[in-house]
């Protein structure tokens, strides 16, 4: 089909997520909902000091949303909260500003496999699908600070 938008990785991770196993006793959790389509992602995080030790998601949504959640969980495991924030900004820049604006990337950590979502940029209405897990993340991390 359309390799440009639906990378094989996206389809695979949406169908068979690797980081969706329930996490017992999470330290913090967060949820993202898109009332327009009913999609939702729930994130559970176990912390190790200022680091994300373990992270799992439960997503009911489209392939873009589900794959993002899974790749995000993968990328964030072991990151510091600061790094997670930075990745969130970088991912947002990938979708909103165009990936290659050097100004938005300087000093930010690598997105890695999350780069597969870059083509979503061309589909404005789908950007929020890829952002939903990050909204859940933001909510979860807000609990850490308080």
């Amino acid at each position: 089909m359309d390799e440009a938008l639906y990378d094989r990785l996206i389809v695979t991770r949406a169908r068979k997520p690797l980081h969706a196993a329930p996490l017992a006793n999470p330290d913090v959790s967060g949820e993202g909902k898109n009332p327009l389509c009913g999609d939702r992602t729930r994130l559970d995080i176990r912390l190790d000091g200022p680091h994300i030790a373990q992270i799992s998601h439960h997503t009911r949504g489209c392939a873009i949303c589900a794959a993002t959640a899974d790749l995000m969980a993968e990328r964030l495991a072991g990151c510091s909260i600061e790094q997670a924030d930075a990745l969130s900004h970088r991912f947002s820049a990938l979708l909103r500003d165009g990936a290659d604006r050097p100004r938005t990337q300087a000093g930010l950590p690598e997105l890695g496999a999350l780069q597969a979502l870059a083509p979503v940029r061309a589909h404005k209405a789908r950007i929020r699908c890829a952002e939903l897990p990050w909204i859940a993340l933001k909510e979860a991390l807000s609990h850490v600070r308080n």
Partner: protein
Amino acid sequence: MTAMTTTPPHTGGFDLAAIRAQFPILSETVHGRPLVFLDSAASAQKPEAVISAMAETMRHQYANIHRGLHWMSERTTEAYENARDLIAGFLNAPSRNEIIFTRNSTEAINLVAHSFGSMLKPGQAVLISEMEHHANLIPWQMLRDRAGIELRVAPITDAGDIDLPALEALLADGKVALVAITHMSNVLGTITPARQIADMAHAAGALVLFDGSQAVVHHRTDVQALGADFYTFTGHKLYGPTGIGVLWARQALLEDMPPFLGGGDMISTVTFEKATWAHVPHKFEAGTPAIVEAIGLGAAVSWVDAIGFEAIAAHEQALTTHALARLAEVPGLVVTGNPACRGGVVSFTMADVHPHDIATLLDRNGIAVRAGHHCAEPLMRRLGLSATARASFGIYTSKDEIDTLADTLVRIRDFFV
């Protein structure tokens, strides 16, 4: 798209190629593919007759209406009021004075909820159904919260029809003042048995409003034969402009109802203390109306009438039958609902592919469908779904386009599974 323009006419007198040629947008390409526009239930494309009626008005014969004594104003007033006549004819309304121009169906229903609604008292109820568009739900919720009336909801069957015995039961205590029901569901395609509902409502002492936003597009509408008290529709789904809709109501009702919006053109005399209202329909048309859009809507109904609803209904029925057959062949695809009588709207889900992904992947192939809750969240909940994909057909839709849809859905499914 050249393949399509050589498709032979479906029915006697219905020349699909000639009709398609009147829609400039149908020659566009999307992502390098010919546009296959299967989203007419959201908003239809416009024939050149409508586009140029509007452009030519603005180029050659335009001024503000009603209050002008000069030639341009008089001619524009005539054109605007002529549109009212055309729409009265289109709905078989007993009087042209019963046609109120609004922005869209949504405003038409809000007008009734505010104006007629202001005459309701606690203890009275409005009855809607489970398959309403938000446009025929939220205004009644807001009225409920404003006026302390009750809002009742008639259930639907699993097939997607109004549950008529249940509806009748909800009418039994005589408290329902108004039944407000869609004449055709924008999700299920269900064409509701309007006459039967009107008879039930009247027998229980209630008035009846039909939301005709989807229905007027697919078959001839006769507000008298339907036994309607209020009827609403929206121009942009009827091959007409955006920014224009219609409320029809029986003249006696309109005369009893207080005005909704205040301003110029809806008054008879004004002092700082008090204003008296103009006669209907003007009482309900405050300020400068959507003049050019009303003229465009007049052109749209003339254009539709010239093709004729017999031919349109036959064409769309054939398309829908074909679509249901072809979609049944797509592995994992489930059509939403199976109503007794269906217009050219088919919603569906696919086991392993989210409706959003379906819509985006169809779009990459030039095919436009809707995905989401279709402004009918409570219906989605009733169906146990959070979203569907929806293909909808218009006068210009071809069997080839439906084949393209079905073939592409098979490829999407293969890609995902």
